């Protein structure tokens, strides 16, 4: 099993990296570029087979360490 986790800055948090990427894309001439948010993507290999247990453990890990709930949101899927 594999967990695929996406962590993004919260909407209220300034994302200067996203802003810079947005400006760069616009300068390069790509049309219709709106706000960009830069986050993180993690893949975690899981050795167990119990999907419910993995769901709960990954959610806990995302909340405790993989993201900081003060500044980031997260979502993940197991496959």
């Amino acid at each position: 099993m594999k967990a695929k986790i996406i962590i993004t800055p919260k909407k209220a948090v300034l994302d200067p990296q996203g802003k810079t990427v947005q400006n760069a894309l616009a300068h390069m001439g790509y049309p219709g570029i709106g706000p960009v948010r830069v986050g993180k993507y993690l893949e975690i290999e899981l050795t167990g087979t119990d999907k419910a247990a993995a769901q709960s453990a990954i959610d806990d890990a995302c909340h405790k360490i993989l993201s900081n709930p003060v500044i980031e949101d997260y979502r993940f899927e197991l496959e």
Partner: protein
Amino acid sequence: MNFAVLQFPGSNCDQDVVHVLRNVLGHSARLLWHKEDSIGNADAIIIPGGFSYGDYLRTGAIARFSPVMGAVQTVARDGGLVLGICNGFQILCEAGLLPGALIRNRSLQFRCEQVFLSTVTQNSPFTSQIPQGKLLRIPIAHGEGCYFADQETLARLKENNQILWRYVDAQGQATESANPNGSLENIAGICNAARNVAGLMPHPERASEAVLGCAEGLLVFESLIHALKTRPASEPAPAPREGREVEVIAA
């Protein structure tokens, strides 16, 4: 006084803090490796600057789960004094001992320069000896020092007088151009609601000797020492459990 200066893999201001406490101020200070689970007989804890765990994941995110941080949580809960400087501030926020978070500088640049700080309140163990109205000239050196908190937290910080320092210009004004990293309301340092845990991004230990160009950072450490000397006698002394001593190189 006995200070414990924490040392994580990647800490790099630990020796400077020990030098100031020992050789400039004449107190006892020892380095405490992050794998220790007790602070021994220390009267106060300093979490120094650096790049603990290479800033992987987020600044302070991994250090915050080191065994020694369990001891720090206990000390903080029991009213002991804890000061985090730069990466130490980031670690304390990640640990939930201070509200808010420190994110990437708005400029995306690593800023290494002198700043002016105004002290917002003398009502804390970290600021009591800073003369009212005196601006402190202290260096910063960070890439992730932009203080962020949601509106509710920010309102609470102000209501409880928890903002200790702000970035200001030479005239003492908290202007946008005096803000080196985009911190909300020019916040450079805060304390918790109980006022025994504080963090700041600037480095007082790098401005604690005239030979370095400025000794105004000493006022922060002197405030801490004053607080320890004048603390109520009824406060129980920390349990005398010895942590492992780490030798200081060239101190």
